[in-house]
């Protein structure tokens, strides 16, 4: 038995998320799929498990082409996926979860289900109480329940998408033991991760993806630097940057602990001076977003102190932060920045200085047209936000920023933009920096981080594991740190 993915293509609008992917995996293999966020791993795995339909390409198991139009047909064909957040319904019992999605009889036979559950669980040493609500299970046990369920449904190929996020070290060891056992029994296990160490520890082969393409394959063990280079490519950082004098501190964090959802970012201490540029590196969900939220009052600090321009800001509201000259540009331009359905002019009115009760439409239109010209936004004063391209949405967001900011916080300022727009965005940001605004930005683009930051904070699993000087750091070193490894 072998699994063959042949020339898979998938586009989302302009983005070619999977660009002619071909991978072959032999029976009984623990196969790693490695790549940065946005490399196209998740898209590929969703295609394979029937969650999204591919544009073209074939998937063959044992030489037979598979029908992967829906998750149901995919599992029928023997492909099961364990999602990052296990698909477990928390309020209902373990056995009902187990039976959920099983084909066949419309009547539930819980006794039989419980027996099946026990039978399949036993060889792996899993121990479930069939009647207990799934809520009482740990995340690790929920994964076990999902694995058992997929096996019962006849999975021959098991995909695990970032399965180690959110489980403890002991649970991770157990999970790996289970996966090894499954491979010994002849299953194909595809382990998707951006964590180098885990892939090295678990897998026998690895495929590396970057920008929607397969950039390399290797038998493990293989030297880590080869994998890092495959993941991130060659980074050429420019060193000729103008020297800017820093001013006084505008942002100071002292032993701040933030909590958002089930991610805790503990014990942050940092100070940022006027005209300083701080880059936040790390894999998505490692705490950068929570950190930015903490600096804007969106994520309340559990403990510690935050000061903006010497003013204590702990427990203060987001709008207080705005009043103190803090501005936040999140990654989702249409989700958390612009308002769909409203025009460019309306956006300028909403963000403008003039807060009088009646709107002076003539003046607003005129001001809006001036801004459109000045920021070269490709659109008209009555164009709606969603009708603009991503680059022009970002231009609009930058044009809406109030003057004289103390601190500008950004998440992926150039994600999805073409080079011209990205350059323009950074020209604007650096102009702000030269006026004395401190810049803190999170990015997944190592080149961008190295090129524009003065200092880079590297996040891993909710912690700042390292602070580096961007001037004397290479892309390779940064790649190691992001993967949670100290560069040798």
């Amino acid at each position, binding site marked *: 038995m072998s699994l063959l993915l042949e020339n898979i293509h998938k586009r989302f609008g302009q983005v070619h998320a999977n660009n002619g992917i071909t991978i072959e995996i032999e029976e009984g293999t623990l196969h790693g799929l490695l790549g940065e966020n946005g490399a196209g791993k998740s898209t590929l795995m969703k295609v394979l498990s029937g969650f999204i339909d591919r544009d073209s390409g074939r998937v063959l198991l044992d030489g037979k082409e598979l029908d992967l139009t829906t998750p149901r047909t995919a599992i029928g064909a023997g492909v099961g996926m364990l999602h990052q957040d296990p698909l477990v319904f928390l309020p209902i019992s373990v056995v009902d979860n187990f039976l959920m999605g099983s084909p066949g009889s419309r009547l539930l036979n819980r006794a039989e289900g419980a027996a099946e559950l026990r039978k399949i669980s036993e060889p792996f040493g899993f121990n479930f109480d069939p009647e207990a609500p799934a809520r009482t299970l740990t995340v690790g046990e929920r994964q076990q329940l999902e694995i058992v369920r997929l096996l019962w449904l006849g999975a021959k190929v098991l995909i695990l998408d970032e399965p180690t996020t959110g489980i403890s070290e002991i649970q991770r060891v157990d999970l790996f033991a289970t996966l090894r056992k499954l491979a010994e029994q002849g299953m194909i296990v595809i382990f998707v991760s951006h964590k180098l160490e885990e892939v090295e520890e678990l897998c026998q082969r690895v495929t590396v993806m970057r920008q929607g393409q397969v950039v390399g394959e290797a038998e493990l063990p293989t030297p880590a630097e080869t994998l890092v280079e495959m993941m991130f490519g060659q980074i050429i950082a420019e060193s000729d940057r103008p020297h800017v004098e820093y001013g006084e501190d505008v942002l100071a964090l002292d032993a701040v602990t933030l909590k958002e959802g089930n991610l805790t970012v503990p014990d942050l201490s940092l100070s940022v001076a006027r005209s300083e540029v701080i880059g936040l590196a790390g894999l998505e969900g490692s705490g950068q977003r929570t950190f930015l939220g903490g600096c804007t009052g969106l994520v309340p600090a559990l403990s510690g102190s935050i000061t903006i321009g010497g003013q204590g800001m702990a427990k203060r509201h987001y*709008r207080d932060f*705005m009043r103190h000259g803090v501005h936040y540009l999140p990654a989702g331009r249409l989700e958390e920045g612009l308002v769909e*359905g409203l025009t460019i002019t309306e956006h300028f*009115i909403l963000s403008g200085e003039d*807060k009088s009760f009646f709107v002076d439409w003539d003046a607003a239109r005129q001001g809006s047209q001036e801004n459109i010209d000045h920021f070269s936004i490709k659109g008209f004063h009555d164009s709606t936000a969603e*009708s603009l391209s991503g680059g022009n949405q970002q231009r609009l967001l930058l044009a809406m920023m109030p003057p004289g900011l103390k601190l500008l916080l950004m998440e992926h300022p150039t994600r999805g933009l073409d080079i011209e727009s990205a350059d323009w965005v950074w020209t604007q940001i650096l102009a702000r920096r030269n006026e004395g605004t401190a810049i803190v930005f999170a990015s997944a683009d190592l080149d961008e981080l190295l090129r524009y930051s003065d200092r880079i904070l590297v996040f891993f699993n909710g912690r700042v594991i390292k602070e580096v000087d961007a001037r004397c750091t290479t892309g390779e070193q940064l790649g190691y740190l992001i993967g949670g490894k100290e560069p040798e």
Partner: protein
Amino acid sequence: MTTESRAERWGAIAAPIALAVLVAIVLLLLAGANPFEAFKLIGEGAFSGWANMGETLMAWVPLVLASAGLIITFNAGLWNIGIEGQIILGGIAASWAAREVGGPGWVVVPAAIIAGALGGMVWALFAGVLKTRFKVNEIFGGLGLDFVAASLAVYLVIGPWKREGVASTSGTDLFRDEALLPTVAENNRLSLVAIGLAIAGVIFVYYLMKGTMFGLRLKAVGRNVRSAFLLGIPTSRYMLGAFALCGVLAGIAGSMQAIGFHFKLIPAISGGYGFLGILVVLLAAFRAAWIAPIALFFIAMSRGSTQLALRLDIDSALGGVITGILVLLVILGGGWQARRLLRREAAS
């Protein structure tokens, strides 16, 4: 970016209306009536005779006021299902003032209208606080409050405010004459105060949504709460403001029902105009300018179709069926149009 042409936009409205008329004709034929005669009867039932037309217009007033209020909450992204309760509370509060406040008409009538506005506002703010502070979806909160308000009206009618001697669900005693809206003639309910309030309500909402910062911010909140919040808009406060303003208009509608139409408090004081208002606003695509004619059409249909029962022996529910079908078809037309645009965009 693709845009729809003017003709297409009108087509998306005209086609469903034509289809609805067609369905109505088929239904009338199935019921064994001559459709043209039926339409004529509906028109006559609503508009023939001064007293009759006065009554139609006085039924139109609360529907317009409620619809105007709903324009505000819909623009804020809120499904204010609690509007029925807000109208009822307006009716109750106005009835209280009409019963308790002494003095001449120019004291009692304004007092009753203001009491109605406050009653509606307080009831709407209950739903608003449940939504913003306790994260109770406004649909569920509003529905619950509707039932409480309706029960309160029944309790008052058969309890503390019951008629001398007999407690009857047909309502309280009639209010004294000073407490009633001044009418244009004897035996005609038409009141210029009521008409004036309805028109003022529409104009107020039109300019609020079109010409003010409040209206623009409300639109931002309704379309994307997260973005609005990050733009620095106090979103909860704006939602509460939308509830309060809608409640005021609904409360005035309730007071019109009490002191301008029924002249007493009855259990069904809201007349169902809150729910009907939701249909009006959906059909008007949330634009204030359209609610007056659409509301008139709805009222004419429901009042005129009673003639069908009297003269053609057809159930008067037919009027409701036709308006319901019309709303469904127009909304379907809008959805169909949106999908076509989306597909065209994907193709380009």
